[in-house]
């Protein structure tokens, strides 16, 4: 008799497996009315040194600064000067244009793969603005805004995407898997959530050495299911680590909605409560709210008041990557119905509303960003596109496996070179 033999059933309710299913599928009309988005300005702002438990209610609310009228409201208004906001807006516009150009480049066969962050531009850009330039990021694959906001050359990013002669990573990494130490941007891994506890480790190192720099780790909603997410949370809590841990909840992990990562039961910010660390849930399409939350968590970390988990609530407006077509698993045009809106439009409307921006200036700035991206692309393409690569400098394949080239790799390098000459 096996364990599953029905004869073992007592006179008890029949057990049932619950498999989460999104409310809407292809063919359905987009509808977010059940979300119940809290109004801007409602969330209280505890002192950055408050006990973690004081943030518990914030894990189910939504820190929002920009109201329906796109005016800042409430305790979380970071009261930024207009130049800072204009810089964020420009960076966000640049990110979107960059994404569109590189997506098109992939479709034109110039590279193998690309990932856009459409609709999520405010998150990385405002986080970069809120941290110090020498703080360290451990990003996942949709934080190109960090590099752009920190002034990393667009041409360098494109050379990596094309795996060409200008690619500092020597054509080794999948497109968009950037790495740049000088810009505080750790090497992106294709394996999910690995960077999250690494951010904690970097910040532990800073704490061990009495440094003043902090780290920020990034993960998506889907990857919070990985064990590494929970290792990060445990270590961050145990050692009161000066780290900001961000979960970008764009609600989709390729075809799996956030319910498959547990979102039917609790918010991602609520993960913080069980570990006893501060947790914030933030409107990820509100650049001012993102800035305010990251600045709050950074101050807390810098003062040795502990780590913070921030959930940025947003919506993945496009496919997971160039290899994905979301029309196969979710309603078309959902992005247009997303109630938190377009982060660029919202920030722009805010600047216009306070008299610091107008349509003409926006059009001129957008044209400048577009010209900048196109010029960078032209420069990058002078150094080649992917289909032309992989034939020259074959010996570089064997470098950096180890510090010194061992005999067996030297032998293989020579064989590879002679194959190349055949």
């Amino acid at each position, binding site marked *: 008799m*096996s*364990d*599953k033999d029905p004869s073992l059933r007592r006179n008890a309710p029949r057990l*049932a*497996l619950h*498999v989460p*299913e999104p409310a809407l*599928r292809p063919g359905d009309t987009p509808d977010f009315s059940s979300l119940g988005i809290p109004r801007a300005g409602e969330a209280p702002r505890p002192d950055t040194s408050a006990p973690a438990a004081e943030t518990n209610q914030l894990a189910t609310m939504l820190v929002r600064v920009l109201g329906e009228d796109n005016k800042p409201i409430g305790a979380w208004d970071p009261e930024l000067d207009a130049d800072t906001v204009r810089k964020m807006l420009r960076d966000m516009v640049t990110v979107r244009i960059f994404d569109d150009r590189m997506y098109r480049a992939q479709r034109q066969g110039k590279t*193998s*793969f690309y990932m856009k962050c459409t609709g999520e531009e405010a998150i990385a850009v405002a986080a970069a603005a809120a941290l110090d330039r020498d703080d360290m990021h451990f990003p996942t694959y949709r934080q190109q805004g960090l590099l752009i906001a920190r002034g990393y050359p667009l041409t360098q990013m494109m050379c990596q995407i094309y*795996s*060409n002669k200008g*690619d500092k990573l*020597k*054509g*080794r*990494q*999948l*497109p968009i*898997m950037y790495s740049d130490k000088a810009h505080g941007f750790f090497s992106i*891994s*294709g*394996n*999910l*959530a690995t960077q999250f506890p690494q951010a904690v480790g970097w910040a532990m190192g800073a704490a061990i050495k009495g440094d003043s720099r902090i780290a920020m780790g990034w993960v998506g909603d*889907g*990857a919070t*299911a*990985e*064990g*590494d997410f929970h290792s990060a949370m445990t270590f961050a809590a145990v050692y009161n680590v000066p780290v900001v841990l961000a979960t970008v909840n764009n609600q989709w*992990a*390729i*075809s*799996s909605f956030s319910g*498959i*990562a*547990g979102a039917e039961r609790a918010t991602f910010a609520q993960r913080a409560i069980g570990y006893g660390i501060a947790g914030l849930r933030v409107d990820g399409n509100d650049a001012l709210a993102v800035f305010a939350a990251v600045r709050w968590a950074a101050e807390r970390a810098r003062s040795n008041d502990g780590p913070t988990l921030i959930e940025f609530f947003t919506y993945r407006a496009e496919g997971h990557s160039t*290899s*994905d077509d979301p029309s*196969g*698993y979710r309603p078309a045009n959902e992005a247009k119905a997303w109630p938190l809106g377009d982060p660029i439009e919202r920030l722009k409307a805010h600047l216009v509303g306070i008299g610091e921006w107008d349509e003409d200036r926006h059009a001129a700035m957008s044209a400048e960003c577009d010209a900048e991206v196109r010029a960078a692309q032209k420069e990058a393409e002078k150094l080649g596109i*992917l289909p032309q*690569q*992989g*034939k020259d400098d*074959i010996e*570089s*394949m*064997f470098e950096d*496996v180890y510090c010194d080239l061992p005999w*067996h*790799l030297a032998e*293989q390098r020579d*064989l*590879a070179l002679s*194959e*190349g000459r*055949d």
Partner: protein
Amino acid sequence: MPALNMIQALNDAHKVMMARDEDVVVFGEDVGYFGGVFRVTEGLQKQFGKTRVFDAPISEGGIVATAVGMACYGIKPVIEIQFADYIYPGYDQIVSEVAKIRYRTAAEWTMPMVIRTPYGGGIFGGQTHSQSPESLFTHIAGLKVVIPSTPYDAKGLLIASIEDPDPVIFFEPKRIYNGPFDGHHDRPVKPWSKHVASEVPEGHYTVPIGKAAVVREGSDLTILAYGTMVHVALASIEEQGLDAEVIDLRTLVPLDLETIEESVKKTGRCLVVHEAPRTSGFGGELVALVQERCFYHLEAPVERVTGWDTPYPHAYEWAYFPGPKRIRRALEKVMAD
């Protein structure tokens, strides 16, 4: 008989077994509604329901561990790890639990499960979507390791794997999901429909685990290969005009040594081909076995053609891949007087 590609053949194997055995349960990342990123599980959820085919959280450790629990209960999990490169968070569960439970409980508990995972390069996937980690599993006592090279074998081997009383790591060569590959990446892709092994019978049949296939008889030398490299090796010997005997291992553990031994004793020469890195690759095991069993029949040292001992580099994919040039050089050495 319909002509199926490997994805369709694997899909069909799932359908056959899910219809025959209500204990078969399928889960993994994106496998439910969407049917998997390579579409191997397409339509299964609709046909068999959400409690038998469902999406898993992105936790390979969790996927394997819950499959262990289900197997303990008496369910037969057939799980998908989206890319072999993603399997490592599940490695502890596979090595310490899946592989050892029969032994450590003196067969009180067993692990009849299948862990399917696409492996190998040739799709510009970079180092995290191209790996061939089979030797990390062949080294572990208690695991069976299966790798098909055709749609016919894929269906028959997957059915046999699901019916097997022991855990099977089922590696799917994703470069040949849609068509066989001759190793020349600059030539047009051939569809499976032109290949005889795309004729896949409907319904239930098995290709036995532990049995290799002599896919080409010959007398000059024996080539041992599996997965994508079977096709690359076949194309290479045609190009070289050699009368090689090509053996598709199909199962790495337990290995069909009898077929290998018989062939090498006949030809007197042997070449081993795999895409995985060279050092501690499965080719090392094959070379050792051939020299142990066939030493006095060998007319030349056994050669290995493999990937390099580097991570799989994105732009240098075709300089990494053990293609026709590398095979030709090795053939010249094996065939030298």
